[in-house]
C-alpha cells in the first residue's frame, strides 16, 4: 500500500508509538528515513478484493522490500532476489542473476576448441562431464564426424555422463534437503557423491573438473577394473538412497514442505522454456535422450520419469527416479561396452599417439599444428543439444574456419528456468522460496555462464 493512500483513507486509529502516515511519508521519524519506499506500482498489482482488504484493516501494514542474496545461504549459485513482502507473503519479486558471469562465451571465442573443454567443465559444475559431452558433440556435428565416433568412446561418454547426472541430482536433492533442515540426508548423499567422484578421478584424473572428453572421443580409456568398481559402488549407493528416501519422501514434514508448492502447468512450463527434470515434473515426457537419441542412447532401455502436478515434490521425485534410471542405463552400458579405440583416428581432429609424437616427424608436426592452430573446424553454424543435468543443454557454435570458435552460445537450462522464479514464488511464503529455488536447481556457472 503506498503511503499516499494511507493518508487519503485517513486512518487515524494508530497504535501507540506507531508512526503516522504523514511521518512515514516524510521519513521524519527516527529510524524510518532509510526505509525503502513502497514500489509505486504495487497498488496496481493488488486486485480489487485485496485492495479492499488492505484498506479495511485497522493497523496499517506496510509491504517491506527485502533483499535475499546475493550472499544468502540458500542460494546455490549467487542470485539476488529483491522481495516485496507483506508479512511473510511474497507480493512481488525481482530475480537478479549475473553475479557469476564469468564470460564463458567471450573466453570461448579466444580459446581453441580443445581449450574450451576446461571452460565447459565449469558451466554446470555439478555435472561437468555432461557439458563436456555436449560441447564435443556440437563441434563434432560441425566437423561432420558424429557418425564416425568410435563405439567404445560413445559408450564411455554415456557412462561418464550418467555418473555425472547421478552426482548432479544427488547434489541437488541433498542441498534441497539441507535447506529444509534435513542435514543428515544431505551428508549421506554427499557421501555417495564422494564414492562416484573417486571413480571419476580414477578415470579422468580430477575429482570435479575433469576436462576428459576430446573432440573425436575421450582422452583416456577406462582404467582396469573400472566396470567392476562402478558396479560395486552403484550397489552400495542404492542402499544409502533408500535410507535417504525414508527420511525424506515418506516424512510428512518434508512432504508438507514440498507438496503443492510452486505448482505450474505443462503449458506454462513450455511457454517458459523449461526442459529437463523441471519440465518433466509437469508431466511432459520430453527427454533429449529419447527425443533425439544421441551417442548410443537408443540402445538402452530406460523410462522417462514424469510428475503429475508440477510442484516441488514432483521435481524432487523426478530427480530421485532419474538417479535410478541412470543406474539402469549404466548397468546396460557396462554389459554392452565393446573393446576398441577411444579416440577417432583422424589426424585432423585427434592428437597423434604420444609414442608417435616422440618418434616420427610427421606426427610431431601434426601435433604442433593441432596445439598451436587448434582443430580446424569448417565454417558454418550448428546447434547441437543434449540432455544436461538440468535439461536441454544446447551449444550454438559459429565457426569461421579457424581453430577457434567465432561464436559459442550455450543454451543453459538453468538460466531459462530461473527466470520463472518470480512467477513461482508470487504469493508464496518466504519459507517456500528456498525449496522452490532448490528444485529449480539454479547452478550459477551455468545460469550466468
Amino acid at each position, binding site marked *: 500500500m503506498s503511503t499516499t493512500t494511507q493518508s487519503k483513507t485517513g486512518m487515524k486509529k494508530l497504535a501507540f508509538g506507531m508512526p503516522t502516515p504523514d511521518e512515514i511519508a516524510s521519513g521524519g521519524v527516527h529510524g524510518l528515513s532509510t526505509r525503502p519506499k513502497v514500489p509505486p506500482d504495487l497498488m496496481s498489482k493488488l486486485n480489487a478484493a485485496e485492495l479492499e482488504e488492505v484498506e479495511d484493516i485497522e493497523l496499517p501494514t506496510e509491504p517491506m522490500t527485502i533483499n535475499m542474496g546475493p550472499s544468502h*545461504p540458500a542460494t546455490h549459485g549467487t542470485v539476488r532476489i529483491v522481495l516485496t513482502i507483506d508479512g511473510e507473503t511474497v507480493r512481488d519479486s525481482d530475480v537478479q542473476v549475473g553475479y557469476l558471469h564469468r564470460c564463458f562465451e567471450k573466453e570461448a571465442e579466444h580459446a581453441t576448441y580443445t581449450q574450451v573443454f576446461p571452460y565447459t567443465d565449469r558451466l554446470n559444475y555439478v555435472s561437468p562431464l555432461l557439458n563436456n559431452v555436449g560441447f564435443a558433440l556440437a563441434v563434432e556435428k560441425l566437423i561432420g564426424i558424429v557418425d564416425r565416433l568410435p563405439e567404445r568412446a560413445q559408450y564411455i561418454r554415456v557412462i561418464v555422463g550418467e555418473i555425472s547426472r547421478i552426482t548432479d541430482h544427488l547434489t541437488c536433492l541433498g542441498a534441497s534437503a539441507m535447506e529444509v533442515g*534435513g*542435514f*543428515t540426508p544431505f*551428508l*549421506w548423499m554427499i557421501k555417495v557423491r564422494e564414492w562416484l567422484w573417486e571413480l571419476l578421478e580414477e578415470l579422468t584424473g580430477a575429482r570435479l573438473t575433469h576436462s576428459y572428453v576430446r573432440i573425436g572421443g575421450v582422452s583416456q580409456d577406462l582404467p582396469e577394473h573400472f566396470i567392476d568398481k562402478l558396479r560395486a559402488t552403484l550397489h552400495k549407493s542404492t542402499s544409502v538412497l533408500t535410507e535417504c528416501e525414508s527420511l525424506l519422501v515418506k516424512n510428512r*514434514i518434508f512432504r*508438507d514442505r514440498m507438496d503443492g508448492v510452486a505448482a505450474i502447468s505443462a503449458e506454462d512450463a513450455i511457454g517458459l522454456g523449461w526442459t529437463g527434470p523441471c519440465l518433466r515434473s509437469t508431466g511432459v515426457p520430453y527427454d533429449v535422450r529419447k527425443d533425439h537419441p544421441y551417442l548410443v542412447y537408443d540402445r538402452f532401455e530406460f523410462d522417462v520419469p514424469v510428475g503429475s502436478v508440477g510442484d516441488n515434490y514432483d521435481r524432487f521425485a523426478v530427480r530421485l527416479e532419474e538417479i535410478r534410471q541412470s543406474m539402469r542405463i549404466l548397468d546396460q552400458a557396462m554389459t554392452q561396452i565393446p573393446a576398441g579405440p577411444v579416440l577417432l583416428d583422424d589426424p585432423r581432429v585427434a592428437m597423434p599417439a604420444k609414442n608417435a609424437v616422440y618418434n616420427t616427424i610427421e606426427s610431431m608436426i601434426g601435433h604442433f599444428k593441432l596445439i598451436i592452430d587448434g582443430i580446424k573446424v569448417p565454417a558454418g553454424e550448428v546447434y547441437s543439444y543434449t540432455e544436461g543435468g538440468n535439461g536441454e543443454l544446447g551449444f550454438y557454435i559459429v565457426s569461421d574456419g579457424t581453430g577457434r570458435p567465432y561464436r559459442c552460445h550455450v543454451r543453459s537450462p538453468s538460466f531459462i528456468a530461473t527466470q520463472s522464479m518470480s512467477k513461482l514464488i508470487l504469493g508464496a511464503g*518466504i519459507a517456500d522460496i*528456498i525449496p522452490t529455488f532448490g528444485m529449480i536447481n539454479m547452478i550459477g556457472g551455468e545460469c550466468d555462464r
Partner: protein
Amino acid sequence: MTDSILMFLAEHTAVAALLKLVLLVLGFVMPLASLSTWAERRQSAMMQDRLGPNRANIGPVKLWGILHFVADAIKMMFKEDVVPAKVDRFLFALAPVMAIAPVLITFAVVPFGPDLCVGQVLSVVTDPTTCKATIPLQVARMDVGMLFYFALASLAVYGTTLAGWASYNKWSLLGGLRASSQMMSYEVCMGLSLMGAFLVYGSLEPNAIVTAQGSNILNWGIFTQPLAFVLFFTAAIAETKRAPFDLPEGEPELIGYFVEYSGMRFGIFFLAEFIETIFLAAIVTTVFLGGWQVPGLDSSGFGSFHLPHLAVVLLQVVVWSLKILLLCWLQLLIRWTLPRFRPDQLMRLGWKQLLPLSLLNIIITAAVVLWRSGGK
C-alpha cells in the same frame, strides 16, 4: 559436623536455596549445556557417518574433542562485540539477558532429588515423613510451581522478540516475529497438555507430582498420560526453537533473530538454546518420567534390600541426571533427523492438531479420574 551444617541449612532456607541454586546451575546446568554443544557436534557427526571435532588439544590431552567447546567459549568472550549503527542500544543489550535469565530462573522449581532427612543420612529411613528436619532437593518449593514455570517461560519470548526488533535488520525482525508467534502459540498447547497430568496427580507442585508418581514405573506420567507426553514433548521442543521447529533461526531462510549479534552476546543466545533443551528435559522428567524416582526404589531401598538414606538420595539424583541426559540425546536425535516446518504449517499443527488433541486428553483424563473416584 555434617549434621550441624545440614541442620543450619534446614533452618535457614534462604541460604540453602542459594546454595542449591549455585550447585544446580553452576554444577549441573551450565556444564551440561556446554557439554551438550559438544554432544551435539559429536552426535550429529556420528549420525552422519563422520567423526566430528576431535583435534583440539592441550599438549597430548584431547578428550575426544571436548576442548573444542572450551575454545569456542574463550574465543567468543574475546571476540569483537559489534553493535551496529542505528540499533536500539538498550534493547539490543537487554535481549540476550532476557533470553537466558528466565530459563535459568525456572530451574528453581525443578526437584532434582527427594527430601534429605537431616540427622539420618547414614541410616535407613523407611518413612521420610517422620524426619524431624528435611532439606528439599529443590530450590524453591511453591504450590504454584508449574504455573511459575509457565509464567517465566512466557517471558523468554521477549528475549527473542527484542533481539529481532532491536537489531535494526529486516531478517532478524522476521525471525523475531516468527519466534514470538511460535512461542506464544505453543505455550497454550503446552499448558493444556500438562493439565491432564495435574488432574491425575492432583497437584501443581513439581515435587508433589514426582512423589505421587512413586517408584512404580506404571504409575509414571508416560504411562498414565501417553498422549500428553507426546503433545507436551512436541510443543516444548517447539518452545525451545530447535529443529524441526527452528523457524526463527531457520538457517538457510532467515539466519535468525540474532543475526546482528556477535561475540559473547551471540554466545548467550546459543547457550540459552541449549539450556532450554536441558530445562525441557527436566520438566518432561518431572511430569512424565517420575522425576528422581528410580523404579522399585523406595526411601528405604529396593524392597527388602535396605540402603542408607544418603545412598538412596544419591542414586535418585544420579538417575534423575541420567533421565535428563537421555532426553537431551533424544532431542538431538530429533534435531538432526527431521526437516523444518513452514510457519503456516507450524501454526496449523499447533492450533488445529495439538490443541484439540490436548483438549481431548483433558476430557478423557477428567472422565477417567471422575469415574475412578466414584463421582465424589
